């Protein structure tokens, strides 16, 4: 499905990021580039991925032309972090680092790679958003702000790039088994399961398949959309 294509994905060591890389790799994508805050996080079974150490919190200090001097077909903006706190206790650091990593880093990476996509008249851009961007979630003012900002970006970028055969979409996961949900205790998990009509957490591979669909030929006429993958948790 992705033969002779190149994927660049941020955050390839996380559970969703590594699933996406693995899905693309097993469907023919042999040139995969990714970023991580620390190369020690790269697992031994990820040797097929070209990793570069990059801290998205201060991406403006890197020379992306030197680091990523190649064109790509698929850009998946997956890296994200959360620093939860009720708003009145939220520090400016908790606010800024989440906005920097989840939102601002996309600005720099998009600028860098879109130029190359415009030139070759092909590109598939997929953001990983979140269900809470559309529903809100107490304790996650910073996280939801960063993720719902992506919805606006997706739509405007989709319109700007539509004449160049570049589609821009996002996938909004619900509760997916990941390093983020691993931090929840059993009571929290059960409370979540109660709200999910399918009565189970999603698998990171469910997200990988949705991203794969949006990058595939089957989705070539789909742009500016958010694909919700949440087991019925929120129908929006």
């Amino acid at each position: 499905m992705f033969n002779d294509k190149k994927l660049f994905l941020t955050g390839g060591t996380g559970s969703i990021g590594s699933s996406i890389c693995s899905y693309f790799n097993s469907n023919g994508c042999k040139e995969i580039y990714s970023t991580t805050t620390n190369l020690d996080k790269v697992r031994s079974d990820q040797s097929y991925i070209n990793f570069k150490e990059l801290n998205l919190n201060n991406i403006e200090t890197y020379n992306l032309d030197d680091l990523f001097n190649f064109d790509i077909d698929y850009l998946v903006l997956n890296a994200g972090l959360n620093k939860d706190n009720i708003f009145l206790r939220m520090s400016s650091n908790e606010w800024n680092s989440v906005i920097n990593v989840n939102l601002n880093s996309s600005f720099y990476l998009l600028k860098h790679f879109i130029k190359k996509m415009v030139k070759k008249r092909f590109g598939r851009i997929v953001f990983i958003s979140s269900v809470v961007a559309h529903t809100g979630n107490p304790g996650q003012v910073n996280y939801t702000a960063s993720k719902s900002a992506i919805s606006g970006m997706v739509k405007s970028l989709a319109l700007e790039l539509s004449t160049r055969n570049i589609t821009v979409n996002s996938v909004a996961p619900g509760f997916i088994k990941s390093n983020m949900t691993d931090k929840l205790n059993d009571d929290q998990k059960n409370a979540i399961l109660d709200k999910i009509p399918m009565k189970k957490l999603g698998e990171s591979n469910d997200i990988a398949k949705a991203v794969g669909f949006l990058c595939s030929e089957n989705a070539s006429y789909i742009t500016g959309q958010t694909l919700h993958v949440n087991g019925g948790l929120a129908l929006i």
Partner: protein
Amino acid sequence: MSDIEERVKKIVVEHLGVEEGKIQSDSKFIDDLGADSLDTVELVMAFEEEFGCEIPDDAAEKIVTLKDAVTYLSANSN
């Protein structure tokens, strides 16, 4: 016609698909030659490649005609 002007014109013809005879030195890429705003970005990228130089965004925004491009590239290309 200078060598630079000729090379710039060739790029404009190739990218915008307009006839060479229709391009005047004061033709505006968007208003007169049918370019859209992304085309102007692509033209600047093509100039950068052809002339081996980097055109910063603030300079690129001021290149709206063939003459602007020739003037800039005459002063800044290698």
